[in-house]
């Protein structure tokens, strides 16, 4: 992979190990300006380590990385003027007010007072936090703390934003608000690298890199990834999910079958062919069911298909 001149973030063969564990294993990807790129994977996949290396606070063992044009491995301090990093744990000062936190970070980035005031007013209004300026950060709700983190990260108009699981534990409504801000930033040309363990959140990204145990499984747009699955995904609605499962478990053509609250989620080789087969089976066994429909695959389906039942990983590019 050659470095694209317009890459806001470029990583090549990034590697980092800790005693006994290879946290990040030869990871390569790039992010363009105006793109929201998701690092997706469960805990321990290497997301936080990758973000820390790109933020210039943890040197990689091997590999290259540039952020906003700066070599973050050899000149991390240069890059820091043009990026913002929001760690997984709330990184602001709980004993300082919203205003004081904003001012502190603005000063660290050399934002002049007038500019800071303008930006702060604008951003706080967009985040719906204008009346909380004098409140101590520690007294804000979880969702507001995240938004404050974002405001502090944006005052100096960075070219690149690195977010580590910004929406973990945040309810869907606040999550949606947060993403609305991210989309606006992207449309202004900011490159956003965000990580999440919520696989369904991956769908919101422009492009996604799925990580598993430090390795890259895939990297593409969610739509492309699903198209490449090459399998059909069926949703069976039934008032007797367990009965349905018992009936269909050993049918032909199934890659994976999962019991959901009100039915089954089945990955098959050929949807058109299997639907009538399953319908017949269930009818014969007198299992009540509502419908068997083909649905779009979820990111989780992709993941499971790639990783298999725990034995080895098949890489799709």
């Amino acid at each position, binding site marked *: 992979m050659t470095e694209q001149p317009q890459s806001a973030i470029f990583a090549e063969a990034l590697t980092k190990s800790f005693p006994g564990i290879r946290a990040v294993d030869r990871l390569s990807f790039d992010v363009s300006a105006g793109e929201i790129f998701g690092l997706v994977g469960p805990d321990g996949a290497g997301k936080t380590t990758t973000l820390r290396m790109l933020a210039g606070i943890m040197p990689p063992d091997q590999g290259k990385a540039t952020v906003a044009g700066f070599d973050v491995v050899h000149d991390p301090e240069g890059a820091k003027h043009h990026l913002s990093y929001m760690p997984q744990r709330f990184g602001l000062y709980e004993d300082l007010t919203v205003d004081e936190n904003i001012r502190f970070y603005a000063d660290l980035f050399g934002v002049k007072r007038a500019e800071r005031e303008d930006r702060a007013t604008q951003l706080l209004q967009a985040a719906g936090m204008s009346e909380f300026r004098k409140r101590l950060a520690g007294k804000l709700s979880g969702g507001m703390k995240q938004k404050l983190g974002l405001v502090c990260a944006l005052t100096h108009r960075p070219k690149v934003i690195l977010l580590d699981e910004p929406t973990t534990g945040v309810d869907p409504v*606040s999550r949606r608000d947060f993403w609305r801000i991210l989309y606006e930033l992207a449309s202004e040309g900011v490159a956003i690298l965000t990580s999440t363990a*919520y696989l369904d959140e991956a769908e919101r990204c422009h492009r996604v890199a799925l990580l598993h145990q430090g390795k890259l499984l895939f990297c593409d747009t969610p739509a492309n990834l699903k198209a490449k699955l090459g399998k059909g995904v069926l949703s069976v609605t039934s008032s007797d999910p367990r009965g349905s499962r018992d009936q269909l478990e050993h049918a032909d053509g199934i890659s994976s079958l999962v019991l959901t*609250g009100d039915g089954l989620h089945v990955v098959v080789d050929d949807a058109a062919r299997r639907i009538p087969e399953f319908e017949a089976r269930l009818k014969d066994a007198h299992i009540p069911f509502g419908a068997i429909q083909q649905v779009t695959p979820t990111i989780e389906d992709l993941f499971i298909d790639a990783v298999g039942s*725990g034995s080895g990983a098949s890489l799709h590019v």
Partner: protein
Amino acid sequence: MPEDNNSVVIENLVKQFGDFVAVDRISLGIRKGEVFGFLGPNGAGKSTTIRMLCGLLTPTSGRARVAGYDVGREPESVRQNIGYMSQKFSLYNDLKVIENIRLFAGLYSVPSNQLQARIEWVLEMANLKGQENLITGTLPGGWKQRLALGCAVLHKPPVIFLDEPTSGVDPISRRQFWDLIQHMAEEGVTVFVTTHYMEEAEYCNRLALIFRGKIVALGTPSELKRDSMKGELLLIECEPLGNAVEVLQSAPDVIDAAVFGNALHLVVRDAAAAIPQVKKYLSDHSITVGHIEKIRPSLEDVFVSLTTERDSGKERKA
């Protein structure tokens, strides 16, 4: 609701803190062996309700019976008959696996004649036989889940509460975990789940959505997706995307428009009627439409649509 079938019965439960009504007359009946999901934004009354059901908070009025005991009058008995598992906070990371198990066995007063059998059972279930002496903090996420679950049910409670049990866990381990839960439910254990993770909500037999202290939706995941969404959902691919959102926000008959990945999600009253209208509207504004289709709402769409108010353009943020 016949009480003998119901493991948890809630009748007009209210909790008030001063002037603030956190929980406003909630009524529910949850059957034995049901996997029941409790969803809601922060501050909606979800945690308060759970605390009352666990016997940790006294209701202001109303009643609730968990595992046959009244939460207001017999909280101690309630607590002895429930298991509680919070994924990130249940276990002591610096203890060995076996030490954690013994600790919880002691906390739950597992009788000594059953102790060994129960310990064996937990180790078996969590697939940790032979690994008793590993330090808990070093276990992979999926194993910790199952260990935490095991520790929460050492005393074989009829009702268990799970708080976002599989967030951050890899998908394979998550499926194995839920397999386990469903197995326990088959054996008659009532499972109460709270989560913000919509994928976990899909594993529940029924869901209740709480907003501002009231239940605003109740049903199976499919029912909620089908019936509770205020309107229908369209997926639109078009260029340029950013402009399209702004344009559509002010279009007639559009309830909500938001960017989603590389496309737009549009909430409209009637999909069939809306599709041609939207197409025309967009091209009138020089936006090329690539693709429009009606899509099934996700649980998240339902959640958002029920917990956001749009009265006279003012949006309430939870």
